[in-house]
């Protein structure tokens, strides 16, 4: 069932600034401007984890926003992917040695795509999101497959009892 795959065509994004210098954030927002216009691909910046499919995080994780990042991730319904944008989101970047920095986003939540750069260019960010769409689609297939298996098992159990 469900081979329609609308997910790829309508990825909604949640953008979170962990502890970025705002360089990458400006580039993320640049993607929404007429020059790059990511709405062409159905991409919308939602600002609400419950509506989002892709979590874009810029900047490294610090002690205070660890819980927030984890919470945002948990609030997103499956299937979902995480894109870490810029050097800081990947590893902590130049802030890595700071007293309050834990490191990259993957210290807290699983990351699917790393977009390099300081700051990451809009083209790179869009490329990262497109890569994420492939992973998102895989996860969706897996999810519907799992649901199907679960349903079949239920039926099997139902018939045997």
């Amino acid at each position, binding site marked *: 069932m469900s081979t329609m795959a609308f997910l790829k065509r309508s990825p909604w994004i949640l953008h979170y600034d962990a502890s970025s210098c705002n360089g990458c954030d400006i580039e993320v927002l640049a993607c929404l401007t007429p020059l790059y216009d990511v709405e062409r691909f*159905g991409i919308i910046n939602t600002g609400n984890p419950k509506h989002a499919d892709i979590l874009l995080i810029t900047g490294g994780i610090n002690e205070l926003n660890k819980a927030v990042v984890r919470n945002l991730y948990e609030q997103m319904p499956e299937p979902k992917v995480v894109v870490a944008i810029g050097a800081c989101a990947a590893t902590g970047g130049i802030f890595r040695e700071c007293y309050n920095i834990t490191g990259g986003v993957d210290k807290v939540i699983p990351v699917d795509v790393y977009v390099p750069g300081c700051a990451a260019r809009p083209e790179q960010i869009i490329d990262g999101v497109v890569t994420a769409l492939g992973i998102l689609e895989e996860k969706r297939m897996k999810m519907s497959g799992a649901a199907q298996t679960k349903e079949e098992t239920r039926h099997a159990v139902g018939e045997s009892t």
Partner: protein
Amino acid sequence: MNWLIGAVLFLILAPVAGGLIAGIDRKITARMQGRVGPPLLQPFYDVGKLFEKENVVVTTAQNFYVLVYLIFIALSGALFFAGGDLLLIVFAFTLAHVFLVLGAYAVHSPYSHIGAERELIQLMAYEPMVILAAVGLYMVTNSFYVADIAATTVPAILYLPGVFLGFATILTIKLRKSPFDISTSHHAHQEIVKGITTEFSGSTLAQVEIAHWYENVFLLGFVYLFFSWNPVIGVVAVAITYAAEIFIDNVTARVRWQAALKSGWLAAGILGLGNLAILSYMMLGGA
């Protein structure tokens, strides 16, 4: 049997038409902003996507309220296209909206809560004008039944220019467009996240979206009633009205609830009542 055909056609075709209108809306909006914009069928992709997502809730009750909301919106719209009593239709829409609001209250979340309160303020803002519009159409056509109003040969708009303008004002609220999109918005960021729809996700959010399509088709049908003596002019007028709403959406910033309430009530009080007062004076004089 005409009424049944109207209702069934609405139930089947309105989501298609509503989705297409939303697609055109997004395309035009993008062009106004110098962008290419999403594909025309984007709204359908979005809703399809939402049905593919996991069902996440704060409380299971929310799904119930949203389902009732969708069913009653569809039912009210079907009543309209079946040619039913306009006042009953207006009240049925209110019932539907109250259920959406209750869904937002039920989740007991701060953002939804504010969204719900604002939605109620919006409801309070547009309700008088909607009732006056129905009464105005009655005064011109002598019937509250949509079937009779649609079949009239009288150019209602010539008698009801004020009522029409007032209705166009509150249409902005009902279409959830700037400057009155205070409870939830099509636009990306909002000060209260997504307001009334914050906690609805996946298929529940898809139902809210479909209900919105149904309602938009109904609203455009309501606009058509002002021009129904000539179907061609009617369709053109509906298109122009909607285009004007898109334009307003793109050139205005969101206002506070006070301004929304005052605009709705003043539209009803000055444009609506003023028009109807003159009309009833004319009718008294004529009789």
